């Protein structure tokens, strides 16, 4: 009959049935019966720099393969040699995602793709897809400057780094973030693909298809050249890649006029942290220890300093700088140094008195914080005493706090840090604070496992989101101690003479920031400090800190608003005055930035009480100078670009054997030809076949 009686599903038992009464469902119901889409996935995309392409690529119409679950190393043999139905799509347990296994897969032609199930808990032996020597060649150490320190000859900073994120794979690799989806795939595999007692599994088999076709190839030079040709000559330009770029956030303790240059005699102390991270997969970058803990400490120190009553009278200014894109060969700091050299920034390199950078500070071993300095610049007689003053100020500030500051050996080089870019331009006295003496304490540097658990943030069970926001973790207390030390040291370095024991960072504020930047951005405090019409900024999923190619990612905006809230003052302006400060002329207004924030919600009503915040927080472009200068093959500046793509998705379904498909086609053609012949024959003889003698009556064709 013409009704579709049967609504049975594509053989994936144990799956939830589609409700039959879904009559007005959007979408193709036939498609839903065949394919199961995998929604909670993250792809591996292609990134390019001046000389190489890294990441993964799939075919134009996706790569399909028979699923095989690899839970132990022996399972790989089926995929590489034994299995009779290549190509295979491997579902890999997170523990087995190592360099050796990946190089084996890379060399095989029987693999059409890989899906990695995130390992919970994180692998005990550590995992870092970054390089052993991060940002090598773009720091300060080279053959001309401290050659014995170049290329990590002295200290290998990231010994656990396997460099997987910097390899080039010709098949797609996806991350399965949801354990339920992984279970669905494994169930499909167990129902159809398991070899029964050593015999070969029969069709239909469970297969997975991954779509992640990347448009850019070879390197940045090639893809930028193609993109610029497109934009110049095509009516409908199809660009193939975009430069990684965003904005740096900076703010000064004493307000300065951002549109003009400061007095050449004025001195500024720069405090710096990075705010971005990376991992093997696109837009998966929790970066707890590598970025978040550092910039949260920095924000807390800025807040503590602004509370000091006599800061506006300090002889030297302090600039709090948050660099974006440091993971990709120092995009933010190289751009700022370039702007300072080209006189496009209010502060020049000569104004810089000293530099203090907070590297990874969350995993302090027995409360020791290490002070790293640059041995090459310290050989200079004018730099050495200034560095010693810096270190002394830090050590003095740590008295009474639960932080022990120790200098690393004087001949040890600087770890990868934004300070190295400033040293490339000019010898400046500076220190980098870190929780590691030689190699990183972070065993998940730039990986998907660098989460809140990695910095030992523990919350008791059964708390509501509001209570979790305000709960002060031990991590927060420890970071607050570091912030206190930094704030006190900065006060002294800026020429402050008062008692520093009153300068304290607020652990509750640190805990709120850690919660907001590591667990959930959509909390009540963040909601109260952002502008009114920014709905997409706060989300409920885990925050990620990848620089991306779109301008102003969430992290940059949130750091900007938090810094404004912590270091700014509330002023009594109306919304009109706040949004248009130039309408009421006042020389003071040029030094400040005014933001109209939506305020917190009244407990009784549902409306918010907005107010105007006056702060000195500015944004400055963080795009590599290589793209400004169109030197796409530059070895001096970062040249990282991200490929463009059209469609990234994943799905699983059952596939039939090729033989059955060919048989179907052949039978169909045979039936067609047969029926054509039969009908023609019957039609030609119809007058004979259908006539009874003497009866010329009813004739039906």
């Amino acid at each position, binding site marked *: 009959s*013409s009704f579709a009686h*049967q609504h049975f599903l594509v053989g994936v038992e144990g799956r939830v049935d589609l409700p039959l009464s879904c009559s007005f469902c959007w979408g193709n119901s036939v498609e839903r019966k065949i394919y199961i889409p995998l929604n909670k996935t993250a792809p591996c995309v292609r990134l390019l720099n001046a000389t190489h392409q890294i990441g993964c690529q799939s075919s134009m119409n996706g790569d399909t393969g028979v699923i095989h679950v690899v839970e132990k190393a022996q399972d790989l043999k089926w995929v590489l040699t034994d299995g009779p139905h290549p190509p295979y799509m491997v579902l890999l347990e997170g523990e087995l995602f190592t360099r050796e296994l990946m190089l084996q897969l890379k060399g095989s032609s029987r693999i059409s793709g890989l899906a990695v199930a995130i390992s919970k808990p994180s692998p005990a032996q550590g995992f870092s897809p970054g390089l052993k020597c991060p940002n090598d060649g773009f720091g300060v150490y080279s053959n001309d400057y401290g050659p014995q320190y170049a290329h990590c000859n002295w200290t290998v900073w990231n010994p656990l780094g396997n460099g997987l994120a910097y390899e080039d794979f010709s098949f797609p690799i996806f991350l399965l973030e949801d354990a339920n989806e992984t279970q669905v795939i494994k169930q499909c595999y167990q129902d159809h693909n398991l070899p029964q007692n050593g015999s070969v599994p029969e069709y239909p088999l469970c297969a997975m298809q991954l779509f992640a076709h990347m448009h850019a190839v070879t390197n940045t030079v090639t893809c930028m050249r193609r993109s610029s040709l497109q934009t110049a000559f095509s009516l409908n330009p199809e660009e193939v890649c975009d430069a990684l770029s965003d904005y740096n956030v900076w703010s000064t303790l004493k307000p300065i006029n951002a549109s003009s240059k400061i007095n050449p005699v004025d001195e500024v102390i720069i405090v710096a942290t990075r705010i971005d991270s990376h991992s093997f997969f696109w837009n998966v970058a929790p970066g707890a220890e590598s970025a978040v803990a550092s910039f949260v400490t920095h924000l807390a120190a800025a807040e503590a300093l602004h509370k000091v009553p006599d800061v506006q009278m300090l002889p030297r200014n302090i600039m709090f700088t948050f660099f974006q894109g440091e993971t990709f060969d120092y995009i933010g700091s190289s751009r700022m140094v370039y702007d300072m050299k080209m006189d496009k920034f209010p502060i020049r390199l000569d104004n810089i008195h000293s530099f203090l950078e907070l590297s990874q500070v969350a995993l302090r071993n027995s409360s020791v914080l290490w002070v790293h300095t640059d041995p090459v610049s310290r050989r200079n007689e004018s730099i050495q005493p200034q560095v010693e003053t810096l270190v002394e100020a830090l050590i003095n500030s740590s008295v009474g706090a639960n932080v022990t500051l120790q200098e690393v050996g004087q001949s040890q080089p600087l770890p990868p840090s934004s300070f190295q870019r400033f040293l490339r331009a000019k010898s400046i006295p500076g220190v980098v604070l870190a929780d590691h003496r030689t190699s990183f304490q972070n065993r998940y540097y730039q990986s998907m496992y660098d989460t809140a658990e990695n910095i030992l943030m523990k919350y008791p069970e059964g708390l509501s989101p509001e209570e979790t926001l305000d709960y002060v973790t031990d991590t927060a207390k420890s970071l607050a101690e570091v912030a206190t030390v930094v704030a006190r040291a900065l006060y002294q370095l800026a020429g402050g003479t008062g008692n520093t024991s009153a300068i304290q960072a607020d652990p509750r504020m640190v805990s709120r920031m850690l919660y907001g930047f590591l667990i959930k951005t959509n909390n009540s405090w963040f909601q109260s400090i952002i502008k009114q019409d920014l709905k997409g900024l706060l989300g409920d999923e885990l925050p990620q800190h990848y620089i991306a190619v779109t301008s102003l990612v969430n992290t940059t905006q949130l750091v900007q608003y938090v810094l404004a809230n912590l270091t700014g003052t509330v002023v009594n302006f109306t919304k009109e005055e706040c949004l248009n400060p130039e309408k009421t002329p006042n020389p003071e207004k040029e030094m400040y930035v005014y933001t109209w924030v939506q305020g917190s919600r009244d407990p009784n009503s549902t409306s918010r009480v907005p107010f105007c915040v006056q702060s000195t927080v500015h944004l400055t472009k963080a795009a590599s100078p290589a793209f400004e200068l169109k030197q796409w093959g530059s070895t001096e500046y970062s040249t990282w670009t991200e490929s463009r793509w059209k469609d990234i998705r994943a799905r699983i379904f059952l596939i039939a054997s090729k033989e059955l498909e060919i048989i179907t086609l052949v039978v169909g053609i045979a039936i*067609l030809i047969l*029926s*054509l012949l039969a009908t023609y024959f019957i039609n030609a003889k119809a007058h004979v076949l259908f006539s009874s003698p003497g009866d010329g009556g009813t004739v039906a064709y």
Partner: protein
Amino acid sequence: MTTAVFIGCSFIAFGPVLALCVCTIAAEPLSLVFLITGGFFWLVSLLLSSLVWFIAVQIGGSNNASVKKNFLIFGVVFSVLLQEVFRFAYYKLLKKANKGLMTVSQEETIPISVRQLSYAFMTLAIVPLHVFWGIVFFDACEKKKWWAPALVILSHLLVSGLTFLNPQYDGSLVPSYIIMMLMGTWAFFTAGGSLRNLKLCLMCRDKDFLLANQHPR
């Protein structure tokens, strides 16, 4: 490679129809008109019966699988009866339009589902079944033999009911093909065929037959 399966199943399901259309309908413009009208009548009958089923399901409104199946059975029976009513209505219309000529051709589509080959073969059986039913039905209405349309309705119900036995395809496909063969034979004889004519045709003695049967007018 699912394109190959699509083409294969389409040819299996609609090969005979395509052959019929190409050889018989396309030559005669009037028969094309009858084809389209017949198809339209059948589609309208399907639409009305689906509407009735849909309303019944909404009123009944339960998520129970067996209740839904009962609704479906009711829907199928009602649809078969409605299709036959429309077939009768079409017959009446054709009679009114042109007493001398009756051409029936119908098309039918079955939504594609997973067990493509089996469903394609079911379609292969259903399409000629409708052709044969039409032949028998119209001839019986012409000759006022009212037991024949009743048999047609019963066999239609039987074939539709057999599809409820899916996925046991041997239970549904084999009897459907047997019924198709029987109906085909009945339609052949109704249309004026006979064993003698078939023998003549197959042994290529038709020329002699024609010469012998010529009536001087």
